[in-house]
C-alpha cells in the first residue's frame, strides 16, 4: 500500500482537488510545476541554505534523559521548537515563498488560526520583500494579540475573517476567496497538509526535512536510522506529516498521531477528527471532517489553537483508515499537565500543541528499550497566557 499522494493527489480514497472552476487555473499551474521546481538544483540549494542559515537547521534530536526515566523508555525530542519563529511552520513557508518566486507571483496570502503560520508567512515575505496579506478569524485576532502584533511588525496586513464562526476554518475560506478574486499575481501559502492537490503533498515534502534529519541523527546516537515509534500531534497535520514522511514505508516504525480531545471526545467540545469525523469535502479535499448529519461543517474545540481544525489532512485520514497510524486523543487537561511536566523535567516550555504528543506516555506504555521520537513541533512562549490562566501562575 502506498502512503504517498498519487498523480491526482489521492491517498487511498482521500485527497483530490474539489475546487470551484475559479480555482482550477491556479491549482493546475501549481500541480504542473511543483515537482519540477522542487527538483531544480537552484531551488534545492536556496531552500537548504535558508533552512540552515536562517531557520537554524538541523534542529537537534535531543535525548530526554529525565523524561525517559520517568516513563521507563527511551524518548528523543526532535526540537522543532528551536526553529526561527518558534515552530516547524517556517520549513513550509520558506519552501513556498521560493516556489511563489519561481512562479513569478508578487503577492502572498495565508490563513492563520493561532497566528504561528501567519507569523512564519509574514517572516518569509519580509525576507523576500513580497507583499503579504494574512487572514485571521476575528475571534482569533482578539485572543492572539501578540502574534497579530508580530505579523504587523513584519509588514503583513492582517485581515479579519468576519464570516461563519470567525476562526481558522473561516480564515481559510477567506483566503481561498481572495485567491479566487486575485488569480494571476497571488500565491496562497497554505499552512498545513490540507486543501486541494497539490498542497497536501507539497507541504508534506517541505516538512519532510524533519524525518530526513531524524534518520541521520538517530543513526549517530543509536546506531540505527529507524526508531520504534514516531509521535506527533495532528491538527491539520503538517508537523506530523514531516515527522512521519520518511518512515511511512518503513513497516517496523510505529506511527502515532495525537489529536486534541478538548474537554473529552464526546463532550461536544473536541477536535478529535479521526474519532468524530466522517468522509466529506473541506477546503477542496476529500478527507475525514467533523460535520452534522446534513453535511454542514461543525466548529471544533481545543485549548490549543493549532489543533482546532474540523478536518485532518488526507494523508492522515488514509493513515487512520488503513490502520498504518495509531491514533490517540488527549484532553486539554492531559496536555496542560504534560506541558508543565516537560518544563519541570527537561527545562523546555513546549507549545500546547506539542504537549498533546507528550501526554501519551501516561497511558500508552512502551518497552524499556523502545526508541520513541516525539516531534516537539513548537515552543510555548505563545501559550504563556494559557499556561498562566490554567495553572494560576
Amino acid at each position, binding site marked *: 500500500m502506498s502512503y504517498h499522494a498519487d498523480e*491526482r493527489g489521492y491517498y487511498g480514497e482521500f485527497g483530490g482537488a*474539489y475546487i470551484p472552476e*475559479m480555482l*482550477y487555473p491556479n491549482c493546475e499551474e501549481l500541480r504542473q510545476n511543483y515537482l519540477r521546481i522542487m527538483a531544480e538544483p537552484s531551488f534545492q540549494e536556496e531552500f537548504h541554505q535558508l533552512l540552515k542559515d536562517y531557520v537554524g537547521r538541523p534542529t537537534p534530536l535531543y535525548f530526554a534523559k529525565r523524561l525517559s526515566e520517568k516513563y521507563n523508555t527511551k524518548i528523543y525530542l526532535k526540537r522543532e521548537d528551536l526553529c526561527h519563529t518558534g515552530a516547524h511552520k517556517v520549513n513550509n513557508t520558506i519552501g513556498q515563498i521560493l516556489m511563489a518566486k519561481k512562479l513569478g507571483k508578487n503577492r502572498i496570502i495565508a490563513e492563520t488560526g493561532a497566528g504561528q503560520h501567519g507569523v512564519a508567512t509574514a517572516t518569509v515575505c519580509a525576507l523576500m520583500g513580497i507583499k503579504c496579506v494574512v487572514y485571521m478569524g476575528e475571534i482569533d485576532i482578539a485572543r492572539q494579540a501578540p502574534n497579530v502584533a508580530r505579523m504587523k511588525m513584519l509588514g503583513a496586513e492582517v485581515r479579519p475573517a468576519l464570516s461563519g464562526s470567525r476562526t481558522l476554518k473561516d480564515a481559510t475560506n477567506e483566503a481561498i476567496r481572495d485567491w479566487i478574486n486575485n488569480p494571476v499575481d497571488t500565491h496562497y501559502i497554505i499552512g498545513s497538509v490540507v486543501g486541494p492537490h497539490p498542497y497536501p503533498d507539497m507541504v508534506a515534502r517541505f516538512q519532510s526535512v524533519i524525518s530526513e534529519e531524524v534518520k541521520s541523527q538517530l543513526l549517530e546516537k543509536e546506531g540505527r536510522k529507524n526508531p520504534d515509534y514516531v509521535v506527533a500531534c495532528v491538527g491539520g497535520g503538517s508537523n506530523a506529516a514531516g515527522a512521519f514522511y520518511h518512515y511511512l514505508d518503513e513497516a517496523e516504525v510505529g506511527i502515532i498521531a495525537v489529536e486534541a480531545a478538548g474537554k473529552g471526545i464526546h463532550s461536544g467540545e473536541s477536535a478529535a477528527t479521526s474519532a468524530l469525523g466522517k468522509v466529506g469535502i473541506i477546503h477542496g479535499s476529500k478527507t475525514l471532517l467533523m460535520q452534522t448529519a*446534513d453535511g*454542514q*461543517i461543525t466548529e471544533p474545540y481545543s485549548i490549543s489553537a493549532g489543533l482546532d481544525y474540523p478536518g485532518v489532512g488526507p494523508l492522515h485520514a488514509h493513515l487512520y483508515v488503513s490502520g498504518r497510524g495509531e491514533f490517540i486523543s488527549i484532553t486539554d487537561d492531559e496536555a496542560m499537565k504534560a506541558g508543565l511536566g516537560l518544563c519541570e523535567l527537561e527545562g523546555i516550555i513546549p507549545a500546547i500543541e506539542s504537549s498533546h504528543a507528550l501526554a501519551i506516555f501516561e497511558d500508552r506504555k512502551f518497552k524499556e528499550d523502545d526508541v520513541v521520537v516525539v516531534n516537539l513541533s513548537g515552543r510555548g512562549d505563545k501559550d504563556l497566557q494559557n499556561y498562566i490562566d490554567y495553572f494560576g501562575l
Partner: protein
Amino acid sequence: MNRIKQKLQEDKKILSIYFTAGYPKLDDTVKIIQDLEKNGVDLIEIGLPFSDPLADGPTIQESSTIALKNGMHTELLFEQLKDIRETVSIPLIIMGYFNPIFQYGVEAFCQKCKDIGIDGLILPDLPLDVYQEEYETIFKKYGLINVFLITPQTGEARIRAIDKASDGFIYMVSSASTTGAKSGFGAEQTQYFDRVAAMELNNPQIVGFGISNAETFDQATKNTKGAIIGSAFIKHLTQNGVDHISDFVNQIR
C-alpha cells in the same frame, strides 16, 4: 424533454434568478419560486445553504448562515418542494456545494430531485473529472443536467472539454471573483464574452456574477443566451421581504 433544454430553445434572452432556500424566512421557498415564475423569470436556481460557501461573497454567505440558523436542511428543502410541480412549470435548478449532497448520498439526492421535478444541478466544487468518473451516469439516470462553470482564466482546451461534458448550458462566470464582489462590466469582460462567443460552442452560455440591473443584464446578454442574478436579488429580499418580488424582476426587463 428536460425543461431547461426546452427553455433554451426559445428565441429570447434567459433571465435566471438565484435565491437561498430558507432565507429570509424558513418557509419562503415556495412563495419565492411562484412569484418569480409569475413575473416572467425564465429559470430559477434554488440555493441549498452550506456552512462554508467558498465561491460566494458576503451577501450569499450571510443569507446561507441565516438560512441554516432558520433551520434549513436538505430533507426539509425536499419536503417544501414536494408539490412544487402542481403550481409551477419553470425550470428549476438546485445550486449547492458538494458536501451536503455527498452526505445525503448522491444517488438518493438525484432520485429525490427527479421525484420532485428538479431539472438540473450546479455544484461549483464538484470538479469535471470527478463528475465524469463517478457521478455522470447517476445524474443522467435521473434526467438531471449538470451545469459547469467557466471563468475568464479558463483555457480554450478546458472550455472545449467542459462544452463536451455539458448538456444544457455553460455558466459563464463574468470575472475573477466571488459572487456579488463586482458590479458592471468593462472592456475585459466584453472581450471575454466575445472570445467565448467566437468559439461557437455546442452549449449556450449564461453569464453570472456582476449582474444586478437592466444595464448589466443587457451588457451580459448581448452575445450570450442569458444572465443570472443572485446577490442583487438576495439584497432585495433582505430589504423588502418576499412581497415585492415583481418590483425587482420588472426593473431588470
